[in-house]
């Protein structure tokens, strides 16, 4: 959050700093907090998938007031795996978009286990544009095993829908705060995950592919998911280390599923603090900082110019002409 802080001010100054909450209210920004007691990757996966965890609508009903849901992508149908709407946060309107899992098997079937179809992402895009048009901050709640991988989704352009969603978020002229609630599964999660600030609940996970998918490809068996999870470094503290999330939101002791109200209160505090900060940043700066935030991911090694002269071709290669 370095650059952003320089522009928006960190507000760590204390109570006299115009009455707003400090940016790090209830947040973990340093992995030092986890010295020696990190849960294993597989425990993190299990907690993130706990069916009793607060899902998007549980969070929305507790964090926001007067939520009015908006339905449909205006093209094909309404996807129940994505909920979107207008709500108030601390008395001011915002647009909220989230992936919705169910709290029971029946509900999960109705919500397709939180796996959106392309029309879900297109509904999200429609709501992002609404946020931009009416200058409302956007809050997205990520919680999906991944975008739905079935034949109908392919037919309707799952990849195009995700790509467009990432594209629209990357240049949306309004502040965006992303909160990963549970599972951040691959591109299907990233489609809601491009923001100025990306937060995650302490026990949330975020990965390039589900542990089962990774195991199916690298170990040729979904049963190896536990090993894959370990190798992928997908738990909260790992994400903080790589900078994929800016800060973790503390969960109640025992995990978010034990106390939805306390979890929601922590999310609310964090959201209000972040939005207070972001709305003061000029939009042009916000967009270039957002670009830089995602631009900076990657660990490449580059020999400096002149450092690696091309290795001399051995004489015999010159003779045989290779």
């Amino acid at each position: 959050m370095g650059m952003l802080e320089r522009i928006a001010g960190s507000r760590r100054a204390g109570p006299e700093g115009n009455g707003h909450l400090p940016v790090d209210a209830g947040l973990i920004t340093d992995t030092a907090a986890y010295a020696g007691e990190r849960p294993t990757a597989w425990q993190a996966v299990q907690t993130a998938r706990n069916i009793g965890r607060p899902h998007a609508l549980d969070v929305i009903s507790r964090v926001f007031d007067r939520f009015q849901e908006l339905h449909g992508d205006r093209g094909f149908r309404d996807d129940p795996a994505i909920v979107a709407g207008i709500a108030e946060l601390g008395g001011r309107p915002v647009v909220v978009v989230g992936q919705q899992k169910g709290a029971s098997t029946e509900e999960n079937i109705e919500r397709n286990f939180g796996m959106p179809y392309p029309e879900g992402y297109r509904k999200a895009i429609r709501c992002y544009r609404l946020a931009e048009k009416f200058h409302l901050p956007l809050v997205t709640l990520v919680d999906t095993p991944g975008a739905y991988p079935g034949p109908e989704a392919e037919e309707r352009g799952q990849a195009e829908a995700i790509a467009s969603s990432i594209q629209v978020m990357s240049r949306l002229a309004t502040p965006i705060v992303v909160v990963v609630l549970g599972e951040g599964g691959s591109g299907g999660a990233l489609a809601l995950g491009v923001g100025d600030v990306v937060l995650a609940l302490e026990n949330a996970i975020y990965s390039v592919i589900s542990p089962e998918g990774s195991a199916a490809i690298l170990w040729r068996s979904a049963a190896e998911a536990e090993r894959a999870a370990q190798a992928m470094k997908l738990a909260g503290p790992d994400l903080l280390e790589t900078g994929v999330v800016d800060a973790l939101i503390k969960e109640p002791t025992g995990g978010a599923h034990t106390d939805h109200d306390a979890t929601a209160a922590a999310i609310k505090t964090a959201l209000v603090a972040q939005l207070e900060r972001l709305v003061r940043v000029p939009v042009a700066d916000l967009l270039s900082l957002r670009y830089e935030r995602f631009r900076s991911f990657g660990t490449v090694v580059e020999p400096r110019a002149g450092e690696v002269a091309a290795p001399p071709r051995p004489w015999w290669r010159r003779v045989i002409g290779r």
Partner: protein
Amino acid sequence: MRLRNPFGRKPKEFPSHLWTQCPNCGEMLFNKQLARNQSVCTNCGHHFKLGAKERLELLADARSFSETDADMVSSDPLGFVDSKTYPDRIAAAQAKTGHKDAVLTGTATISDIPVVLAVMDFEFMGGSMGSVVGEKLTRAAERALADRAPLVIVAASGGARMQEGTIALMQLAKTVAAVTRLDEAGVPFVSVLTDPTTGGVLASFASLGDIVLAEPGALIGFSGARVTSETIGEKLPKGFQRAEFLLDHGFVDQVVPRAQLKERIAFFLGAFRVAGQDLRWSL
């Protein structure tokens, strides 16, 4: 009379360094002839996968390609190990392909139109996109923006590189943001989807070209067959996720045979002169 070693193996009728069997029609193709025909089956028109070098020869004008960031390599951010360590996999892929990573980027001309050209190589760890691919493509897009030269990306990739974890996933956002800047500036971007283009690459920059072209028969789709069957327990029907299927469903502009690809790209680039330069119509 020639003597034969009775214990030796019989010489094969079609040794593989000379002959390749077409997986589509079963025809035996003489390798030299196949290469001369741009790796397209002379019998049925099946398009074989093309390496990055051959792809460059096909698209860029002779000797026009000048490579950038050729020495960029990946580090191993996660210390990833499956059956092999990630650095070992990279080393093996480098030895196999002769490239440092799964994409070559640079400047070139296509039918005398200066472009920034990026070509992915499926042979390098399934063309997967990690930090290096993401960074090189982003730089290519940024260069295209600075030079106001069209960007042409030829995709061939299984998706994001699992060995780099979430950092690889972030390359989707990074490359999308970079090509989006071209979009805003009115610099053309042509995306060519070749066999195969799936997963995170299709779900990012590759779907966002002003023009999206695909090669005949190319496998193009969001989720790989193995992931689908593990996740939803059913197999995708055959013929699904082929270039022609995407054409039918409205996600690619044209399916272009390899022999016509270069001239077709040149046609579109010629029509879309970069905004602010040499207006085609004085409107």
